[in-house]
């Protein structure tokens, strides 16, 4: 009995009946769950591709001091990912902070066409742009609330949505504190930044990183010791958005101001 093929724990030389039933039961249940839940080949990474998701841990770095608000990234993202009009996988916010009074924040069409010159009479002393994308949180509330497991985190640290499995309940849209998700009006499913998963798994950068003329957006790999982003994360003072929610964002910011949420 101790050599029963379903008994996966090699330490069990002598197995009581209860233990045997428990182990066998959970093994069978586990196997059923794997068969039911996982699509084919998912444990091995992307099928047929020369890419091992155990070898990477993607992170994203935004240098707010560098961004010029040109909007190229928003346009590139829309073109690359066929993002529906009125929805945004990435956007740029403009902050104008006067010496006294409320900060003025805007993001006309997500900054897609850039920003018109400031015309307000505010005595603006401090102004900057903040690009936003999905934070690909480690403790992400959006996959936590997905009732069917359509929203998931990949092993290389990207939060994705299975468009074939999503029921379109919208719970994840409500649960994301960063406004990164939307319901795609064409597919009627939850949609979001994929960190250009179709590109990064082929050795390319994301569309937004690729197009940024000033290097304000950078893609990094935690598992690559020579990655410049890793060097910055290790030596510079970085911040994440809404750290108090403990979602552990994997999108880091340089030069973030306290006005930014």
């Amino acid at each position, binding site marked *: 009995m101790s050599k029963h093929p379903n008994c996966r724990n090699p330490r069990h030389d002598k197995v009581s009946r209860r233990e045997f039933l428990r182990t066998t039961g959970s093994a069978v249940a586990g196997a059923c769950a794997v068969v*039911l*839940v996982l699509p084919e080949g998912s444990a091995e990474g992307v099928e047929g591709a020369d890419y091992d998701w155990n070898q990477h841990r993607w992170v994203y770095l935004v240098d707010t001091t560098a961004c010029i608000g040109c909007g190229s990234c928003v346009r590139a993202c829309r073109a690359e990912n066929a993002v529906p009009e009125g*929805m*945004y996988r990435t*956007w740029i*916010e403009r902050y104008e902070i006067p010496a006294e009074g409320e900060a003025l*924040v*805007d*993001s006309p*069409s*997500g900054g897609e066409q850039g920003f018109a010159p400031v015309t307000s009479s505010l005595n603006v002393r401090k102004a900057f742009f903040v690009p*936003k994308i999905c934070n690909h949180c480690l403790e992400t*509330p959006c*996959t*936590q*609330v*997905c*009732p*069917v*497991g*359509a929203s998931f985190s990949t092993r290389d640290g990207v939060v994705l949505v299975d468009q074939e*499995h*999503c*029921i*379109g*309940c*919208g*719970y994840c*849209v*409500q*649960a*994301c*504190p*960063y*406004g*990164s*998700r*939307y*319901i795609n009006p064409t*597919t*009627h*499913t939850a949609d979001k930044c994929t960190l250009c998963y179709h590109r990064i798994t082929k050795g390319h950068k994301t569309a937004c990183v690729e197009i940024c003329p000033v290097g304000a957006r950078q893609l990094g790999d935690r598992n690559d010791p020579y990655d410049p982003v890793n060097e910055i994360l290790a030596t510079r003072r970085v911040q994440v958005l809404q750290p108090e*929610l403990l979602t552990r964002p994997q999108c880091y910011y340089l030069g973030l101001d306290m006005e930014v*949420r």
Partner: protein
Amino acid sequence: MFPELTGYLFPNDVHIHWSLMIVMYPYITGLVAGAFLVSSLYHVFGREEFKPLGRFALATALCFLAVAGLPLLNHLGHPERAINIVVTPNFTSAMAGFGIIFASYFIVLLFEVWFVFRVDIIDTAARSRGLKRWVFSVLALGVYDTSPEAQAVDKRITRILAAIGIPMACLLHGYVGFLFGAVKANPWWSTPLMPVIFLFSAMVSGIALLIVLYQIAMKLKGMAIDRDAIAAMSRWLWLFMIMSLTMELLEIMMLAYESAEEWEVIGHLLTHQLSFSFISLQMVGGGLVPLILLAIVVLMDRYMDDRIRNTLSMIASLLLLLQVLSMRWNVVIGGQMFSKSMMGFREAYVPGMFEKEGILAAALILFIPFVLLVIFERVLPTFSHLDRGGELS
């Protein structure tokens, strides 16, 4: 048509994804939970004053539960995949238990209805011919024993099922409150009080619905309205509405007194976007006014003419039905009127009349249970046993 916005909203936050349908769902399950409680007060706790309503309340709960899933199905982007919730549940999601909780409560309720109406089903089968006889024979599930011993067993099983049903009804509904209460991204939803508020308001709406329906049914049937039943329901309604209103106010007062970051948003929300639906409807018109009306009904019961009691409880109930609906609206829609940037608001949200999740669809869904109830009443009379001396449960 683009919504009118003020301040800065995250660009994806200008949409109201949880529509009128998500307002309807907790409203309907609340009516179910409240109606079920009234039936259980009789079936489990033997409160004789609820005897005239024991069966009717059960039928009401069933008819409303039968349509409770419709608004959700209509809301889903892919209703054909709804079964995924049961097939591949992700148990870290509060929503994943939905299928299991909903289905098990439905089964318990169906069984209870069957045991309560079993003797009537057999009687009808025996008295009729042809197709009707066949249908009722099928409904009897092959058991034709109507001996006093068998009826005693029925009664005992009904009591057990009703007792199991109470926590399940509370679970089904309190759980909807949990769905909202556990969203940490939204300060208007994220409070442990949310399930409690949902539960108490469910009881309020269910009892209020029964007061209204019972009086209408009696009028239509030309039967006398039972004064003890109305008085007792008014008492319970008063109790639950005080609890519910207290919780609702408590949450606001805490937020206002703490004046933390979220109050900047919520204070603005309550005095601007929700000023009518929250202050006028939920607090004053649907809160304070029925509070006073029911206080009169309860405290001056001994001196009150039946007609006045009936009228006052009817008005209070109608107002409370509106109050609970506005509470659901304020939670669901209110929580989407501001952006998670905490810097911007949507000025108004008016659901369209004819859109997929619009007013007409909501009205139709809410209308179905009343039709079901009329059919139920035709098939299995919920009041006739009272005329027969009413020794049945």
